[in-house]
């Protein structure tokens, strides 16, 4: 049972306070998109053993969506940040680099 900190209200809460929403930083492809792009958007997901970026909602709290950067194997949480961004903030990337030098996730490093 994880502990996560909501970057909006600052609460460090039990996992039961939150609801997971799958992989973060997906780019939406809509009408007119190629079959390959649309397939990738709907179905292709990272499955890392290590650094991962996930969407979480503080569902039994402030209701806000945020993104958590964590290690899927050790469950270390590198940080959380608001969902209104298309890529991880530099500060979070630095924290990951400090803990996992040479990490890479999709095109982010």
């Amino acid at each position, binding site marked *: *049972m*994880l*502990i996560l900190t909501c970057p909006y209200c600052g609460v460090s809460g*039990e996992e039961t306070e939150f609801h997971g*929403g799958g992989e973060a930083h997906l780019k*939406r*492809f*809509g*009408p*007119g*998109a190629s*079959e390959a792009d*649309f397939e990738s*958007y*709907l179905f292709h997901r990272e499955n890392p053993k290590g650094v991962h970026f996930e*969407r979480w*909602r503080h*569902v039994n709290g402030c*209701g*806000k*969506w945020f993104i958590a950067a964590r*290690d899927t194997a*050790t*469950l*270390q*949480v590198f940080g959380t940040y608001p*969902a*209104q961004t298309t890529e991880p903030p530099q500060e979070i990337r630095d924290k990951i680099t400090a*803990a996992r030098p040479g990490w890479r996730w999709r095109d982010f490093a």
Partner: protein
Amino acid sequence: MSTRLQTGGRLIDRNQRLSFTFNGTPMTGFAGDTLAAALLGNDQMLMGRSFKYHRPRGVVAAGPEEPNALVGLGQGPRFEPNQRATTTELFDGLSAISQNHWPSLNFDIGAVNNHLSKFFPAGFYYKTFMYPRAAWKHLFEPIVRHSAGLGKVTQPGDPDRYEHFYAFYDVVVIGGGVAGLQAALAAGHAGAKVLVMEQSAHWGGRAPVDGVEIDGKPAEDWVSATLQALEDMENVTLRSRLMGAGVYDHGYLLAYERVSDHRPGTAGPRHRLWRIRAGRIITATGAIERPLSFAGNDLPGVMLASAVRDYVVNWAISPGDRTVIVTNNDDAYRTALALQMAGLIVAAVIDARPTATGALPQAVRDAGIRVETGRGIAKVKGRARVEGVALCAQAGEGAVLEEIPCDVVAMSGGWSPVVHLWSHCGGKLTWDAAQAHFRPDPDRAPADQDGAPFVIAAGAANGHLQAADTLRDAAAAGQNAAVALGRDPADGTAARANAVAEEPLLPVWIMPQGAGPDLRSKMWLDYQNDVKVSDVQLAAREGYESVEHTKRYTTLGMATDQGKLSNINGLAVLSDALGSDIPQVGTTTFRPPYTPISMAAIAGEARGDTFLPLRRTPMQDWHDANGADFEPVGHWQRPYTFRRGGEDRAAAVKREITNTRTNVGLLDASTLGKLVVKGPDAGKFLDMMYTNMMSTLKPGRCRYGLMCDENGFLIDDGVVARLDDDTFLCHTTTGGADRIHAHMEDWLQCEWWDWQVYVANLTEQYAQIAVVGPKARALLENLGGMDVSAEALPFMGWADGTLAGHPVRIYRISFSGELSYEIAVPAGQGRALWDTLLAVGTQFGIMPYGTEALHVMRAEKGFIMIGDETDGTIIPQDLGLDWAISKKKDDYLGKRGQARSHMTDPDRWKLVGLETLDGGVLPDGAYAVAPGSNANGQRKTQGRVTSTYYSPTLGRGIAMGLVHKGPDRMGEELEFARTDGTMMRARIVDPVFYDKDGEKQNV
């Protein structure tokens, strides 16, 4: 025989005599006894029967590792099976029964299995699956099913209370032995908020029994002084009868408190489940002694050497008159000294080691006790009780050198640290060859959210078996835990224990080492599940190499004790059979809970009415009082129908429909989701959410809308009303309000966060009442207050106003095909308006109707229902809802998904109406069969029923279904398969059965 000694017993109070019964026989014991101790005091060594062979079994241990002494405890609704006699505190009036025998404990028919044991080797159960095929069904399955399960199930009506308790600590110390107390002292001195828990009722663990001296005093004195010191510290909490059950991610810890098991029926809960978040967890959980594997090691009277010591010292129990001690280490010699001190006879100490020259063996020799080295037990003599042992050379094959009469065998194969809690959350182990056990590897501890180790093993649980090392290790653990959490190091010095040097043990996994098949098939590893050395060796011969597979094949360690005694011995035998090292074979996975905890504690308060909180509409009380027959819908209970007099459900539904279609009906529609979507970009946003164009909807008007996910599949539907330029009210399905609200928030927060839109869920703010039927308008006009004429409030319009004095918003929307007004009123006035409508409506023949009438009427009109016509794979185009999909919009959720080739495939099953030829009702979910069979020999199908009802309006069965190219096949007849194999014929028709032109709703 086992008896109570005249003196001694550090835990019992001889002034408090307690009465109890075992299998109906009255017995007595003392306050402070465990049930096992009290049974031994009454010469009841035989406490149960083994699971597979029904062999007679006595108590082996004195703690939670006990595999044999499981009893059914209590009576009536308080009865609980499989309770450990060794951890059950005796109380006055306790009633226990033994298990797994018929007709009685002393004479058990099932013991015939013992003589047939060569037919029940490891994996016999799996072998019965193989051949002949008929034998499984008719011979093996009935036998296996009959013998499966241990103990009787409990009865309903548990009168006790159980609760969950949430707690937060810096440091939680699990184990109240000297290590735990020392660790708590160090962490407490450093200022950490500390919880110390002890699973039993007594603090101090083994040290007082083992004669340890701490700081120059008997351990018992140090324990009392330390307890007092801890109690005086405000930042330290002490709890006994609280067991660390499981360690989980990020310092989450479950602990199980047996609050009133020892005083049943008293105030307060029986069990309490502690849900703890800890910064650091110190596992000071001690160690468990291992049995030795010699022939006949399961006879009643063969016990762990430490347990024999416990019974003598703690409870003044003599397990027998003459004891033979068999060991591979120095520690067991303490048992010889304890027995002699109590005036009991130790016939011999049989030491498998070639020599025994340590201080303890010397003390035993000095006490005049015979010590035999390099010897082992060839076999234990006796049938239902130990009568003697046959000595042999440990290095040989079991040739008997001598027989020694005795009635107790105290065995010690060395000690294994209790690493369960360390391992639950990923802590790894390392093999300590010198002590022949696995202990925690501090470099591979479970890590928390910051990547820091959060479990610290201390004392014997960390492989430090000598008291002096234990205390030093524990003090360091306590100090380190506090410092890791930012506390300043304080007094972290350890108490000093007297050091008694012990010689190394000799790993002994089989006794004697060259034992042949006869002896090996009488050496028990797992007492409860009857797994023997020969079974593990057989598994290895049959190709099992993984310890996890061997465990499941042989059932080694799968009993309720989870292999606490058998694990290491079993994997040592396996590694020997495989010719590999023990660390290479490794251990099986340790999983929570440490010992079984009650299901009731896990459920806590979530029982009966509080199991699932019920959502109630403002009219619920009226429904309760007026014959409502409820059905669950989401977390609501909605009236299915309102039965009158002796009506059955079908008759009531029929009456409600007929009345609604001819007079006027009343529906509690409050459960419908009501989401307000507001903001300058609300129209643009709803254009993305719905397949329809919502931005063109005029204020004052309503529009039916469909919602899809990005796959294009329907997820919800409902009527949207535009309240003003910036504001929409979206109705969702009853179960969908929270889900759709979350769906909207997701897209607003994570995709279009720059759009100015706000969504609020107002579902419970309003009561909503549908007034439905040809006389609906007349009724509302009679109530007065607002103009509800067709001109002022046309079909698919809405208006605010006052009705019978209540502020209302009325929507002219219809899910029944009749003239219909859905009236929203503030929730607090819902019941009043409901009552007024019923009172005034009497003259119009008003009757409330339930969800079944609602469903039938919508089906008569061919309206779809989310969850009936949809199942998460259905797109609107499948349901003939193309009219509700905007062709003008560039984008909406699901548009790209619906353009995929499979979604535009003309071969998709599509919605049609179905009319049975005989007027009967099609079974729900029935498939329309097609000619031919598929590759699996199953009939091909060409459609299925999605909704099916008896229509009182049409006087026949009607249905909707999805049929291959259905709309192109009007008039065709299909065959639908019933579960009994017969067929029912139905004709494909238009799904709108009633008032095809919609004239009745638009008046």
